[in-house]
């Protein structure tokens, strides 16, 4: 019966390969650095500080913790050596994976879908860059 399976088109294969490979890598990053953070290895903000203010909205939380609101990505990117920042880099990487998948599909789709996928990728990139431009 195996030969009855319809073939998956090129863009589907590309999307699933990117999601599978990059997704597993990103999840691995989050779990690795996240567990190091949870056991207290080199945190930027210790857990006691986090739990003291985590009932406040995000803006107020960051004012209490670091003196100003978090706008953009410098709140974790400016100190990449700590395990909480590295965990956020992992989360950022996971959140990029569908963009990588979309770009991979652009080159394998027919013209109209190619245009829509390129537009989708552009929208995605704008959503990421919007806070810093």
């Amino acid at each position, binding site marked *: 019966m195996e030969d009855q399976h*319809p073939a998956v*088109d090129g863009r*589907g294969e590309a999307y699933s390969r990117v999601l599978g490979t990059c*997704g597993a890598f990103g999840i691995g990053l989050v779990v690795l650095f*996240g567990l190091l953070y949870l056991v207290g290895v080199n945190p930027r903000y210790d857990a006691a500080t*986090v739990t003291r203010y985590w009932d406040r*909205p995000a803006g107020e939380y960051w004012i209490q913790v670091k003196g100003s609101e978090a706008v953009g990505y410098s709140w974790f990117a400016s100190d990449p050596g700590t395990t909480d920042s590295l965990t956020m880099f992992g989360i950022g990487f996971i959140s990029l994976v569908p963009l990588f998948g979309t770009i991979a*599909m652009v080159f394998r789709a027919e013209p109209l*879908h190619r245009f829509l996928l390129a537009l*989708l990728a552009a929208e995605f990139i704008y959503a990421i860059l919007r806070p810093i431009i």
Partner: protein
Amino acid sequence: LETASLFQWIVVLFLFTLTIGIIAPISGVGGGVLFVPIATAFFPFSVDFVRGTGLLMALISSISSSPRLIRAGMANVRFVSPVATVSIITSVLGSLLGLYITNNLERGESYITLTLGILLLFIILMMILSRRVEFPEAGKVDPLSRILGLRGEWYEPSMGRVVSYRATNLPWGLLAFGGVGFLAGMFGVGAGWASVPVLNLVMGVPIKAAAATSMAIITVNSAAATWVYLARGALLPLVCVPSVIGIAVGAWIGARIAEISRPRAVRYVVMVILVFAAAVDLTKGLQGLLVP
């Protein structure tokens, strides 16, 4: 709960999300729909961090399940380009508005908690009333769906043959997905509860393909919305990490249990829990708005 030690917090969050991960595939209710309203109702951290974590959970579960579904032919990536082009905009707008309300309006958290309770009641109603059509008749295919070639096929082992379908009503589908993306971004919930009925009942996609294809669409929406939450610092490793590990392990266990048995009773128990969580969210929201 508020006086619990840090270690207890991590364990409580892990066990909570582990349980959600196990019962989600058995009950057919999405993990995000369970996590966000229940965590908002019963956990002390801000609804901002709950929503950010909810989106991350939706993203990771869709990234994990999509490759297998695409290779099986059930998740159709042809739908991603037209649908996500619209829903990515609304999911980002929903996220921005949701964070604006909690961070800029007085008692903004109470508005979000109250509307989350209302949304949850609506979701429960949809779960009860919504029909699931195994193989809907597409009828007349609209020009846009025809131009974009929105059709698909997969080998269905239970029938021993290839099932083919074609979608229709794309303009209505895009309108509905615009709304779905907005709600998903604003409340941080995965949107399977809405996107599956839209694909199935509005666009005429068979239920199995609709459920699988919605996962491929959710990857894009939830990822873009997660960036909005990330840019406002609305994700905390202390909340995210135990939750993500808990739901991943739970989903692994739950999927295996669901293959053997999916007792209806579990779905009813989940419904009752969701009604209770909705009641608590409504009460918390109203108290926040009415009590001086």
